[in-house]
């Protein structure tokens, strides 16, 4: 057993402990701001696991996209909707949690059984290691070119969709006369006429 493998093992154990505890915290903590920050920790430890799996490019993409974009987006959403509200008690909540816990435990046992009884074709071919980024580039511009281009269209569609869904239905100036709409409508001190017809 060499030093490198011991280090790998220690890193794996530490990262998995962070991952599992962070995931439980995300699901169970009552304060949602703590959950969002713990989610960032979970994403970072997943990136560490990718580094252990010889995938430096995907680890960098994980940090950039998940920690840098998705987590910040979630924090902004919490900031925009974080109103203290007392959730009304619903009957049978404890039973529901117990039942869903049993279902998830059964799913977990099934997954573990599949993982440990399937005869995997190990050891597989030698891992490419540091050349992984080059291989990914070759894949993206040869046999996965169509999904790659479709992904760009998907990102454009979701960007436009997010803007359309999240914008307010109030214009800052009148379309015809060009004079400014009063600020109370924009700040939502008074609700616009459109919302009165919609179901509440």
């Amino acid at each position, binding site marked *: 057993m060499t030093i490198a493998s011991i280090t790998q093992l220690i890193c794996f154990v530490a990262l998995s402990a962070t991952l599992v505890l962070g995931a439980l915290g*995300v699901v169970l903590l009552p304060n949602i701001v703590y959950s969002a920050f713990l989610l960032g920790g979970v994403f970072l430890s997943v990136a560490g696991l990718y580094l252990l799996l010889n995938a430096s490019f995907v680890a960098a993409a*994980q940090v950039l996209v998940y920690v840098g974009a998705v987590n910040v987006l979630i924090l902004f959403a919490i900031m925009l909707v974080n109103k203290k509200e007392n959730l009304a008690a619903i009957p049978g909540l404890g039973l529901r949690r117990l039942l869903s816990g049993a279902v*998830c435990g059964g799913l977990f046992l099934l997954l573990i059984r599949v993982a440990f009884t399937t005869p995997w074709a*190990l050891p597989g071919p030698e891992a490419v290691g540091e050349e992984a980024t080059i291989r990914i580039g070759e894949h993206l511009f040869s046999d996965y070119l169509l999904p790659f281009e479709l992904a760009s269209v998907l990102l454009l569609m979701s960007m436009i969709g997010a803007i359309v869904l999240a914008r307010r239905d109030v214009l800052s100036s009148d379309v015809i006369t060009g004079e400014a709409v009063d600020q109370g409508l924009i700040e939502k001190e008074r609700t616009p006429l459109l919302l009165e017809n919609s179901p509440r």
Partner: protein
Amino acid sequence: MEFTIPTTIPLQAYLALAAVLFCTGVWGLINSRNAVRVLMSIELMLNAVNINLMAFSNYLDGQLIRGQVFAIFVITVAAAEAAVGLAILLSLYRNRETVDMERFNLLRW
């Protein structure tokens, strides 16, 4: 009974870790009252799937690392999903003034 520590990390360790993460995500998805937490649970499940893809790519497909390419596409789709999901959440909040999942029941019965 002899108990030996494996010299390298086995593939099954990654699969078990991903299973734990996925089941946590499913439980959170079912039981969360807050709509933002539901989106976070979906991200947890997507990350569990990504860990599986990367582990298979490293252990079983070391030369053509197709699992890593798939993981990149999953990350892309997850980013798009988070953006659209949070936009839907914002417009829901604007209409209903709440983020409680139990009160988003207009189309339920």
